[in-house]
């Protein structure tokens, strides 16, 4: 959104969005998450897993969800990662049994409800359409965006089971784009945890609260599915690169640069023209939705 602002204002001609982190080999991610815990550490509450697990537990109380729903997300995204040579989990398949028998981390989450911790980097250049038309790859344009940041702290967030910021941000983005969910060919959802994918898709309106398990059944989000989600494997199975994982994957899919996992005929999915993406921060307390289109 800032990139669009400075481009529209004529202050910049190209904006580079980058991320790089030695989160796996270094200890900075651990330090960051510990620092975020503050006085919650007094009660043994640390990091992000437990915060999202807290949200997921409340969701289990308010509507029909739980590990049976999240398993389909973890296993489905792993199938995409198995088509992506750059994914950390490229060579590791995951069955429903693998998911069920994984070690518990912070219940209701087990190991495979958590995203990866990765070393690596990503970059994406934003420029004007006029400039992009001259470049080597086909331009991908921004059709719509929305943001909603309902809270600053976990203890003040009364909506962990939704509606999260995705509810309003998604509607803003669709309205700006002038389309409906029926026009979306695929999604790249910020998937720090499996539940994040469920609540985000639910708040966008892909299914009603508690209907996620049925909606996901039959491989909806997998290769060959009717609504592919996180086609690189996502944060769960490709690499944790913050919101850059969904952003770069959406752009590359629309440009047709995704090799074996390319959406379209090759993976028995719809030709990607419009991809909806999300990003969120805190424990479901800030949210951005944006919709990209190939022209």
């Amino acid at each position, binding site marked *: 959104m800032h990139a669009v602002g400075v481009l529209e204002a004529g202050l910049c001609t190209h904006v580079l969005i980058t991320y790089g982190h030695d989160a796996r080999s270094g200890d900075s991610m651990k330090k960051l998450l*510990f620092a975020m815990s*503050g*006085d*919650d*550490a*007094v*009660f*043994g*509450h*640390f*990091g992000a897993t*437990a915060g999202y*697990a*807290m*949200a997921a*537990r*409340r969701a*289990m*109380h308010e509507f029909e969800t739980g590990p049976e729903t999240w398993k389909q997300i973890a296993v489905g995204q792993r199938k995409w990662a198995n088509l992506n040579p750059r994914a950390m989990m490229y060579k590791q398949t995951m069955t429903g049994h693998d998911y069920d028998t994984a*070690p*518990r*981390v*912070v*219940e*209701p989450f087990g190991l495979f409800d958590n995203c990866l911790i990765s070393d690596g980097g990503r970059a994406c250049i934003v420029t004007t359409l006029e400039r992009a038309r001259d470049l080597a790859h086909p331009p991908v344009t921004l059709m719509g965006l929305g943001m909603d940041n309902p809270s*600053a*702290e*976990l*203890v*003040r967030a*009364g909506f*962990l089971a939704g509606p999260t910021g995705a509810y309003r941000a998604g509607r803003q983005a669709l309205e700006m784009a002038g389309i409906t969910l029926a026009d979306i060919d695929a999604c790249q959802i910020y998937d720090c945890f499996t539940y994040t994918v469920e609540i985000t898709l639910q708040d966008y309106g892909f299914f009603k609260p508690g209907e996620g398990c049925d909606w996901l059944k039959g491989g909806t989000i997998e290769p060959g599915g009717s609504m592919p989600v996180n086609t690189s494997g996502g944060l769960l199975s490709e690499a944790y690169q913050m919101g850059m994982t969904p952003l770069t994957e959406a752009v590359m899919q629309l440009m047709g640069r995704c090799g074996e996992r390319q959406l379209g005929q090759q993976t028995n999915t719809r030709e990607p023209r419009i991809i909806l993406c999300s990003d969120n921060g805190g424990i479901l307390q800030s949210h951005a939705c944006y919709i990209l289109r190939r022209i």
Partner: protein
Amino acid sequence: MTYAKPLPQINSDNQDFWDGCRNHVLKIQMCGSCKKPRLPFSFVCPHCHSTDTKLIESAGRGRVYSYVVYHVAYHPSFKEDLPYVVALVDMDEGVRLLTNIVGCTPEEVYCDMEVKLSWDEVTKDVTLPKFRPVANTRS
């Protein structure tokens, strides 16, 4: 034996809260302007930005909004407690507190369970507000 777990970082903002805990009184801030109760303690009301702050005492009763069960010790001092429960408790006064549920097994905890305060004197100076089930409380 020294207490190995992290202790609260007490400062001028939250001094009254932790002083209250030491005396087994759970204090809640109440905005003098918009009358909204709040936790954690803050100098400015997050709703109306007023600095006019009053203190009220909680009756110590609430319900579990949500909870999680730790199976991993992210700090070594919690290893002996595994599996343990961290919960968000909605107090009857209208504020939410991050805390532990004690006095029952993790399997016995559920969302909306009624709980009451249970003080844990962890050091000479620090007492933590924890909660136990109202019903069938073990001694």
